[in-house]
């Protein structure tokens, strides 16, 4: 019987059915970071348990690290305490830790693929909702809470109900200046923030076939913003080429065997899905959010929604709440909205290709006066590669601050925060109220090049105009 990738990976990792009907699922790869793991280690100690497979858990530090300071102790004693706790826990339980001194530290969802730890046909868990990123490799990867981190540490398994699978085809070709970020913002706009509840999303179609691994990661990353706990792309030659030669990728004969095995996990032709959605790439424009959840997005050429014209249930109240918070006028163009801060980075868009694409257009341009612009590589590895290519200098010359690797202003657990009701053009993934560190701070999500365009214009702008983007 033909099966989709999700079913194959699920079946290969099913240990048994639990008394309540959930599945005890083997988690092959466990990634941890400093924010959601310390309590899990505390629970292990309280229960007198050991880590079942320490060689299958990998740690890094990302959420709380300052991006303007490398040396310890950190200015924030709480951040230092979390850093110390992770170091201590990894040492005590024999877990590999990509600490800052190793040159391999970074956002957990950038480090896993970079090291070749993220592989097709595997199950991956991490106490972070953006774990869906790793699905780009044809892995089933999902975010968990802290108690489940304890479960994975102690048993290398979790209790989980099987998800349904929705295939999302994006057909045709994206226009110039339209990126993976626009694809996922568009998908979430169409299907809603809870459209994916109970589903894993399988992304496919010509657009995904052509996408690089980094582009696939950007889309899979924000599956959770559409309510889908996992999102994936079937593994193909692009996947294998990305993995080959990476530190944790199989070598020699083991590589050939692994590729054969990985291919076998791809969805079979004619397999069934619980739902299928098809989107024409031609309708996707550079997209920006105007509200307080990621489904509240519009094309840069569109006007801000007017609650008076709302038709769906709750739509009026939800637009009113969003516009009141965002201080935006209904019916006005979003283009031209003044910004205060520009942020390029995060597990969504903090990879080499993101900085390369921006640098290509930003070269010789200047950030508008009064705009604070920061560029935060997603990992130390990304940072080094950018610097080898001289990209950091292009960003600096343009007036961006070039920072150390971390999550930074995506969720502002370090000192990179909005102040008051500052408005931020951001390449991150969430525009929730208060997300970027100020209870009244405002976020507009967009692609990295659109952030750069906003930084240069000083207002929300169409990158295709600012940078004269034409067909590649």
């Amino acid at each position, binding site marked *: 019987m033909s099966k989709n990738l999700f079913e194959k990976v699920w079946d290969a990792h099913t240990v*048994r059915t639990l008394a*309540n009907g959930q599945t005890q699922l083997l988690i*092959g790869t466990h990634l941890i970071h400093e924010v959601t793991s310390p309590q899990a280690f505390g629970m292990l100690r309280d*229960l007198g348990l050991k880590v079942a497979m320490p060689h299958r858990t990998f740690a890094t530090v990302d959420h709380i690290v300052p991006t303007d300071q490398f040396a310890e102790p950190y200015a924030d004693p709480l951040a230092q305490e979390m850093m110390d706790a992770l170091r201590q826990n990894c040492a005590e339980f024999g877990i590999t830790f990509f600490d800052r001194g190793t040159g391999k530290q970074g956002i957990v969802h950038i480090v896993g693929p970079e090291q070749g730890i993220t592989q097709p046909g595997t199950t991956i868990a991490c106490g*972070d909702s953006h774990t869906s990123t790793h699905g780009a490799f044809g892995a089933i990867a999902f975010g968990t809470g802290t108690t489940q981190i304890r*479960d994975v540490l102690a*048993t290398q*398994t979790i209790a989980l109900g099987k998800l349904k699978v929705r295939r999302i085809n994006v057909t045709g070709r994206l226009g110039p200046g339209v990126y993976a970020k626009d694809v996922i913002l568009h998908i979430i706009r169409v299907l809603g923030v809870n459209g994916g509840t109970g589903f894993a999303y399988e992304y496919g179609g010509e657009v995904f076939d052509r996408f690089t691994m980094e582009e696939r990661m950007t889309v899979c990353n924000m599956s959770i913003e559409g309510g889908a706990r996992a999102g994936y792309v079937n593994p193909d030659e692009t996947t294998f080429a990305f993995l080959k030669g990476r530190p944790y990728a199989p070598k020699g004969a083991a590589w050939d065997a692994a590729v054969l095995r990985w291919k076998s996990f791809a969805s079979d032709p004619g397999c069934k899905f619980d739902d299928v959605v098809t989107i024409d790439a031609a309708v996707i424009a550079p997209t920006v959010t105007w509200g307080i959840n990621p489904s509240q997005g519009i094309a840069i050429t569109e006007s801000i929604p007017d609650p008076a014209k709302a038709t769906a249930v709750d739509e009026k109240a*939800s637009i009113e*709440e969003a516009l009141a918070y965002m201080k935006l006028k209904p019916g006005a163009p979003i283009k031209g909205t003044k910004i205060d801060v520009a942020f390029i980075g995060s597990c969504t868009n903090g990879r080499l290709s993101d900085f390369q694409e921006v640098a290509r257009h930003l070269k010789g341009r200047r950030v508008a006066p009064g705009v604070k612009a920061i560029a935060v590589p997603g990992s130390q590895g990304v940072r080094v590669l950018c610097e080898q290519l001289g990209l950091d200098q292009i960003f600096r010359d343009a007036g961006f601050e070039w920072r150390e690797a971390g999550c930074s202003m995506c969720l502002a657990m370090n000192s990179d925060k909005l102040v008051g009701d500052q408005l931020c053009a951001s390449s991150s993934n969430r525009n929730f109220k208060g997300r970027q560190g100020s209870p009244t701070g405002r976020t507009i999500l967009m692609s990295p090049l659109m952030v750069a365009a906003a930084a240069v214009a000083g207002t929300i702008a169409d990158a295709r105009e600012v940078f004269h983007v034409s067909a590649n």
Partner: protein
Amino acid sequence: MSLEKITRVAGRGVCVPGNDIDTDRIIPARYLKCVTFDGLGEGLFYDVRKNPDGSEKPHPLNEPRFKGAQILLSGANFGCGSSREHAPQAIQKYGFKAVVAESYAEIFFGNSTTLGLVCATAQRADIAQVAAALDAHPQAELVLDVTAQELRFGSQSIKVGIRDTARDALVNGRWDPIAELLEGAGAVKATATGLPYLAK
């Protein structure tokens, strides 16, 4: 380890209306700078409950008549966003034992159940009916019957839904799965042998 069999939750209620209430709103990220979950109740809904100077904003949880509520009512897609268990931990540590909402984000639902925080779904009109009753009689006791999937208040009742796997886990006292997962250690080894990437 024996866990409480959670067959019913009785207590007063409060409604925090709205859809898509995300985990950043439930517990702002700055409260995640901690190595234990102690004290998270303080941060619950902080930025919508309080001004930066600590003075209170109008919010149902700030109303004296709703103090001590143990059942939280809300809208659709409750708990969307981050996987932070700090969100259900904050709700529980504030004093809530159950949530009744139109729907939940997946990860939040799982995290809550594992803590024994009951998450029941109900129709919007029914939630509105309970909210209206609470507004008129904030001291009234609500009884969430997990087994019968019913929320009773005064002489009225509404149907609620609790996913089979969660309901089974709650009423049979196995909502924290660690004991059962540990029992499967032998089967885990067998499954692992078929997965070459797990080899050392």
